């Protein structure tokens, strides 16, 4: 804050220059931040689990395999997405 600035003006300047991280450029087709990538991972985890319950578990493969795959995918998406 300069000598002649009011606290409000100072706050406005802070708003004008937000200190956010630049969006990451990864293999996903859209710009994402870490929370977007976490969200995408959770969405995929739920979808994969439901698919597993419906089609794969009746064959005899445990849901834990699906969870491990989803976790691995989440790590890839969050780090490289």
């Amino acid at each position, binding site marked *: 804050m300069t000598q002649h600035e009011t*606290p409000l003006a100072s*706050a406005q300047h802070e708003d004008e220059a937000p200190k956010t991280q630049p*969006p990451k*450029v990864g293999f996903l*087709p859209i710009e994402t931040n870490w929370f977007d990538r976490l*969200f995408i991972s959770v*969405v995929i985890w739920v979808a994969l689990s439901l698919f597993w319950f419906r089609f794969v578990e009746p064959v005899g493969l445990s849901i834990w395999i699906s969870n491990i795959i989803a976790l691995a995918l989440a790590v890839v998406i969050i780090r490289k997405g």
Partner: protein
Amino acid sequence: MHSNRLGWILLAPTLVILFFFGVLPFVYVVFVSFHSWNPFAANPEMIFNGADNFRKIVFDAEFLNSVGVTVTFVFFAVVSELIVGYFLAQAFMKEFPGKAIFRTIHTLPLIMAPIIVGSVWKLMMTPSIGIIPHYLNEWFGLSVNIGTSSFAAFATIVVMDIWHWTPLVTLTLIAALVSLPQDPFEQAQIDGANKRQIFFHITVPMIAPAVVATVFIRLMDALRTVDEVWMLTGGGPGSATRFVGVHIFREVFPKTNYGYGSTISVIVLYLTIVACWLLYVTMLAPRNTKKD
């Protein structure tokens, strides 16, 4: 730092309310969805059953059918509301005699409670006394009975939803159209663009955020439609209008199956979030531009 603290203080009441009325019930529903719980049964205890409710849901033919019915309903209702709402918004952009009174009358359905809308439409659609079956029969020779015809029941619910919610779409699109700058339109006309080109290359991209926001609101609302449908058809005939909301209602209230009802709610919330997110990604999300 000072502005941050002030911001948090100003936000605090909203965050507290949001936590108690939004986050906490959501967490509780997710918690209940992993339990078998019928509080009115011989054993009213909440019994943890892992993911069994989710295992059951993917094989529940009634639930899967209700998802199909709901998605079909949402598609026809929201698309129709968007188209009709856009044309009405364009009409309201022009001056014509009686515009003010027409706009007021057109907005009236919005202030009616859904349960009232359902009751009124039930009266209007009852074959012996309803005005709509009467005139459809007199003018076109059609015999319409929503108690026996699946198609008539479904179509009536779609029309009822369009009648009820199109004014909302119109109002948001009027707001979007009014705020458009005139310069791009004038420049396009000078460059010789026709109406179609102006619509697809200027109007649509400029009102896209408002359209997406409106579709979000309507999508979320339409996916949890219960009261209107419950009053009008009760989910019938058969399961023709058993939307997911109605399915949850039947599971939770008549059967008092709170655990499984919560599971269906969580899945419906998941589908709603995914649908909205896909719409956002398709229409608005900034693309990744890789610099090679």
